[in-house]
């Protein structure tokens, strides 16, 4: 019974939403979607835009995949998912261009690269193709929020340290010396590394406490 994909599909489970925020956070815990996580987080606005765009694609593709899950034959499912995802990414790409060309320019090709973000295909394959539309939506929302939150964590640290600003507003003293490395690629690696360290540390401590 429990093996069956649609077994628990009838009810909505808010855990599907919560898990993406922390326990199964796509960036900090699952370490997925590293490319956008590192590449576009040199400022908060980029991080948020990227987070939202990814969430949008994630939600829409999860919805569509989940609602079509009985229709799509197993053999062609991956191809179909990619098709769906690529379409939504194209949509997101145009919408961002229409909203702000500056943001679009600073994100560059990374909007289009959402297509190959493993989180999206991963959720479609691992969750949406086996669960109800409602739960898939919750899952996508959770993952999206978790992803955006992670990007914000990185973007926030990097923009504040690297530029002394948050969302473009000066939050530190006017004489603050920016750590330019933080908005360089190296800083991206180091910030993510530091966050992962923190999560590792917290997890280790929790394990230790629960063992006692």
């Amino acid at each position, binding site marked *: 019974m429990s093996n069956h994909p649609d077994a628990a599909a009838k009810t909505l489970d808010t855990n599907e939403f919560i898990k993406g925020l922390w326990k199964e956070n796509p960036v900090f815990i699952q*370490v997925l979607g*590293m*490319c956008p*996580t*590192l*590449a576009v987080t040199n400022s908060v606005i980029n991080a948020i835009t990227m987070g939202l765009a990814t969430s949008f694609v994630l939600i829409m593709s999860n919805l569509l995949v989940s609602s079509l899950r009985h229709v799509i034959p197993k053999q062609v499912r991956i191809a179909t998912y*990619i*098709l769906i995802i*690529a*379409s939504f*990414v*194209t949509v997101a*790409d*145009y919408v961002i261009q229409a909203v702000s060309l500056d943001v679009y320019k600073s994100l*560059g*090709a990374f909007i*289009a*690269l959402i*297509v*190959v*973000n*493993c989180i999206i*295909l991963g959720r479609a394959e691992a969750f949406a193709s086996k669960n109800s539309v409602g739960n898939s939506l919750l899952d996508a929302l959770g993952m999206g929020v978790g992803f955006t939150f992670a990007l914000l964590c990185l973007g926030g640290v990097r923009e504040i340290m690297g530029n002394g600003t948050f969302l473009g507003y000066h939050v530190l003293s006017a004489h603050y010396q920016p750590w330019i*490395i933080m908005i*360089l*690629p*190296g*800083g*991206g*690696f*180091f910030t*993510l*590394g530091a966050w*992962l*360290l923190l999560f*590792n*540390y917290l997890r*280790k401590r929790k394990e230790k406490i629960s063992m006692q």
Partner: protein
Amino acid sequence: MDFDNLSFIFINASLINNFVLAYFLGICPFLGVSGSLATATRMGFAVIFVMLVSSTCAYGIHSLLLMLHAPYLELISFIVVIASAVQLVEMFIKKFSPALFRALGIFLPLITTNCAILALALFQTAKGYSFIECLVFALGAGVGFTIALVLMAGIREKLDLAEIPDTVKGTALAIMVAGILSLTFMGFAGLGG
């Protein structure tokens, strides 16, 4: 095409703006395959190969879509065509050079969904490179990827034997090492300029 321009494209793609260390492209295989040197090297060559194939495809698609006035199909076509092309090439290699297939084969499907490959197509389109430039760009990107991967693999093999503190073990360490490597590659900035 003058040689200076081509060499700049190559140096730029391989060292200055290394796909992995400056653009964070292909981090997944970078972290996943850099555990042992032997696989890293083979993976590197497979990437160079796929990059050349997909760069050619992307150039063709882009020209075709320009003629058809359908730029909005670019992303979808890149994905689909590159994936199929790599698959075809894979079958071709399997048939005609089993040795090469054994060496590179298992990596090919892995690479197809790698963001570095798609990014290569997108970048070369955005930069408006000519066909030759595209190939040099692809070669540079592939070589750069390989260099980063191989250096990383060497360091990680060495670190396998180190007494790493518990908290640092795992991805965090690899990311930090990548950060230091990324810093060292800053030394190449301005080369060929």
